[in-house]
């Protein structure tokens, strides 16, 4: 099992850092899956996560100038690692003015992702700052736990409103309540609602548009017969929604959510070739 990669371009480095910072906000620990073409950050819906799950996919070519990996075996040319993304985030903080950043899989007293940051220096030889981030190698028999989630059989799919507005509103609502109701219909309307003993607040978004999903023969997509005015709703933990929004850049290429009434809210966010799926379960 081998992995080594190098980033030379400062824009790529900043972009990669932003992605890692976003992941660090969403998960304390997660799985990093490496394939020859892509990196994936995966969180499965364990109780420890409060039921949220995440699938974030990046094409390595958009970030790395060099990328070489050898998986566990020829037919299974992939590597699965468990890591704490905050550690990677901290290492990259030191790399802001770096000339190069190299990441490789090493075995110090335990498996590590070693991040070597080459910093500019006045002397002729560069300064190198090395971070050893402990990781755990996930054995092949457990790989099935980390499959790409399927799009749920949703009741309503809707494009998200301007994230800046959604972020502000959810931030304020977080001060007032622990849970929030997300509801939307096929008329492009979405409401965010909180209600406590002290106060009730509802924010109405209109004209958002509903994404056109192509339903294949198998999936029972019930949206065709659905009354466009009827709302699908789910009550979720407001902190989880706020964490998702906090990590997002202002203008994603695509941002939408699928609501399965009273069960789950599924977010899809696409920004600069980073594809993120995030599931927040409904509260009991």
């Amino acid at each position, binding site marked *: 099992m081998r992995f080594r990669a190098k980033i030379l371009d400062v824009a790529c480095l900043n972009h990669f850092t932003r992605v890692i910072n976003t992941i660090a906000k969403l998960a304390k620990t997660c799985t990093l899956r490496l394939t020859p073409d892509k990196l994936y950050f995966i969180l499965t819906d364990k109780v420890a996560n409060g039921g949220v799950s995440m699938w974030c996919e990046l094409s390595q070519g958009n970030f790395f100038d060099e990328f070489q990996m050898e998986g566990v075996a020829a037919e299974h040319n992939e590597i699965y690692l468990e890591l704490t993304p905050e550690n990677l985030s901290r290492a990259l903080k030191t790399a802001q003015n770096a000339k190069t950043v190299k990441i490789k899989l090493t075995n110090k007293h335990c498996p590590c992702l070693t991040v070597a940051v080459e910093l500019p220096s006045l002397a002729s030889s560069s300064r190198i700052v090395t971070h050893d981030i402990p990781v755990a190698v996930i054995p092949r028999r457990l790989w099935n736990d980390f499959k790409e989630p399927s799009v749920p059989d949703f009741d309503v799919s809707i494009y998200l*409103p*301007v994230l*800046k*507005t959604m972020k*502000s*509103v959810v*931030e*304020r*609502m977080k*001060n*007032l309540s622990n849970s929030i109701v997300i509801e939307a219909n096929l008329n492009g309307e979405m409401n965010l609602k909180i209600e406590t*003993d*002290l*106060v*009730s*607040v*509802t*924010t*109405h*978004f*209109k*004209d958002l548009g509903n994404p056109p999903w192509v339903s294949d023969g198998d999936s029972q997509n019930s949206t065709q017969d659905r009354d466009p005015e009827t709302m699908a709703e789910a009550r979720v933990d407001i902190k989880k929604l706020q964490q998702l929004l906090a990590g997002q850049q202002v203008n994603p290429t695509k941002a939408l959510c699928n609501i399965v009434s009273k069960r789950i809210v599924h977010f899809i966010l696409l920004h600069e070739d980073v594809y993120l799926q995030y599931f927040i379960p409904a509260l009991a």
Partner: protein
Amino acid sequence: MPLLPPAGAGAEAEASGTHYVLAASLDKARHLSTMLRAVHFRDVATCAATANGLKVTVESAKCLQASAFIQAGIFQEFVVQEESVTFRINLTVLLDCLTIFGTSSLPGTSTALRMCYCGYGYPLTLFLEEGGVVTVCKINTQEPEEMLDFDFCSTNVVNKIILQSEGLREAFAELDMTSDVLQITMSPEKPYFRLSTFGNAGSAHLDYPKDSDLMEVFQCNQTQTNRYKISLLKPSTKALALSCKVSIRTDTRGFLSLQYMIKNEDGQICFVEYYCCPDEDVAETEL
């Protein structure tokens, strides 16, 4: 504001069958939220609306009372159906609602506000709109409780100064909080106007001469030295930071009145007033 309910309490009364005792519209919600922040040091506030405008009062420890006055002229519409409409409300929640779209807005954008109250037992309803998005808030209200009457009238005023706020801002921001009290000395003779603290590191005195550029009015008749609990006065720093001028008055009992003149971005003027009674252990007036 096409997205908000039609203005005019009459129209609403007919349309919805409810009778609003207070109905107000404001193009820029921040004209209200900024004033409320100047007195936000407790969760609970008492709101009193009359034809003159809105007064929001917060009290502390039965020794301090702060009020923000937002006069009717600031609002685009301000209708009160009774002589006075009073209720208590959670000020923290009210501020979160008024700033639901965030506190920093891009130049040119603002949050429009419509505020309605049907009277005793009803919530305060807010309609806020920015960029086509509408938020409706219903905040529970409580029965008003008796408020302190400091009985501060101008005939009993012994000493009065009006200062430009920029002169006091730094002093207040850097008050030695290890001191229990802030001592204020006002006198027709030196030191004229002195702020003193007595903290762990020692005492600190800050003097303002009566002919200083910052001093707009200096009317001191008698030397008075009074001490006030510093923890009670520290919150007034917020009002000071927003204001352009402050008037400082003490009366025969040593009660302190601080009045702050606050100009909003449209040049309209509102006032915030703090009343504080002297720290009971030490109160000296020297003739």
